[in-house]
């Protein structure tokens, strides 16, 4: 048995399709939803722990990609370099999980690494390049 942590990014048009339940039956996998953020108005995002055979997981992920879902392995950490961050706020709408957000009162940019899925979208979007990737 193998386990794998992955992030599924759903485009808007796939929000309604039962992708996860299909891979369970098609490839005999077990799954654990670590986090999901899917609303009809925007793109969807799901963090999953998959369990099954190595081959089964590979085939399942290939099939999911064919359906139009972007699959991202979850194996890196993104960190904020506090010395470089100038709290400008260019990252907060780029982050898909609101791991980066602004404190309403101080307008300071907060980073909650527990919510971060290491998609790395913030890395190039940060003007002073304060977001760093650690393997």
């Amino acid at each position, binding site marked *: 048995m193998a386990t794998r942590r992955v992030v599924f990014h759903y485009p808007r048009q796939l929000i309604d399709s039962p992708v996860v339940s299909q891979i369970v039956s098609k490839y005999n996998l077990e799954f654990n939803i670590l986090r999901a953020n899917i609303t009809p*108005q*925007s793109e969807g995002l799901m963090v999953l722990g998959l369990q099954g055979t190595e081959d089964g997981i590979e085939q399942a992920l290939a099939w999911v990609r064919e359906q139009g879902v972007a699959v991202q392995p979850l194996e890196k950490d993104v960190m904020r370099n506090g010395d470089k961050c*100038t*709290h*400008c*706020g*260019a*990252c*907060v*709408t*780029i982050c898909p999980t609101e791991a980066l*957000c*602004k404190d*309403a009162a*101080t*307008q*300071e940019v907060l980073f909650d690494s527990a919510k971060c899925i290491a998609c790395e979208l913030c890395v*190039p*979007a940060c*003007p*002073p*390049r304060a977001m760093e990737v650690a393997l």
Partner: protein
Amino acid sequence: MPKTYQEINEKIKSGQVVVVSAEEMIGIVEEDGAAKAAEQVDVVTTGTFGPMCSSGAFLNTGHANPRIKILKAWLNDVPAYAGLAAVDLYIGATEMTEHDPLNIDHPGDFRYGGGHVIEELIAGQDVRLRATAHGTDCYPGKELETWINIADLNECFLCNPRNAYQNYNVAVNLDSERDIYTYMGVLKADLGNVNYCSAGQLSPLLNDPYYRTIGIGTRIFLGGAEGYVFWQGTQHNPTVARTEQGVPKGGAGTLSVVGDMKQMSAEWVVGVSMYGYGVSLQVGLGTAIPVLDEEMARFTAIKDEDIVAPVTDYSRSYPYSEGGPLGHVNYKELKSGQITVDDREVPTGSLSSYPKAREIAEILKDWIETGHFLLSEPAELLPSADSGLTFKPLRERPVQSEVI
């Protein structure tokens, strides 16, 4: 009773001055009224911290031996302008490293450029100067490669032709499919996000909307040190539409500013990379506004909800100068985290750091309260709403090639 600059400066010297930030002034005027506030408060401090293109630095390296009249120069492989004299250089904030791939693989990373060189100079890091020349009798040198450091330069001053924009566009992307990469940050397709860039109620020129107290010679906070306004900024546009309170409804006034980089701190002058666009420089700038009378008390009490900015499409409207804004929103709405555009809730991000702006206003307060910073009366005020001055587009005139 109107106050004079001299009276306020006497109070600063004697430690009697009352100085508050533009944020604090809002509550004071709301509670006591503008007339009483004008009597109580002498100075209001402002601040802004954001990417300010049209920034750059002059430096004089001193003469090498043999002497060289520099024709072409590079600082850490970023081209600097040398067409001034022999060893005077100007490095612009948006200049890219030579041979940078730019947007060949779009969106380009734009990792390093003039803004970063300026930050490193201020931080006291060594910078590599490379120069070439044609050689003359008086300046025989033809090549130069050496490390330089700000401490050894004769002069090194920030000289920014356009900073501190008085209000600005609020950027969105109406393209249904394509994310776009702009100087206003990454804008997601189909109204995916909104980016704004102003400190709003703390912003220098929004607290003196008609430039009654700012002009040539005004002493300011620039990059962590004292600096000066030396001219109106480029694209200064005082005649735009204004609200009843006099606040421009979009980009309007700008400042040309200058200051000694040897006194500055790299905390307030930061090279930045705008994904898919280029490099720039985050600059911290603040003003100390004399509350000369009731009108200045009212102006300096402007608040976010009373400052509106135009929502502008950067996929089509801005690049091709088509159509007008999609509407106006105020900075209270923008700072709340989402606004409504076309009946849709859109999340807001920003490029201007409000926490840093607040810090600048507080530092200026401290400088004034401790008698380290005096106000300077401008030798000439900036052109205002009655000047007739407008920011014009280029009138393109086709160039006919000559046929022999």
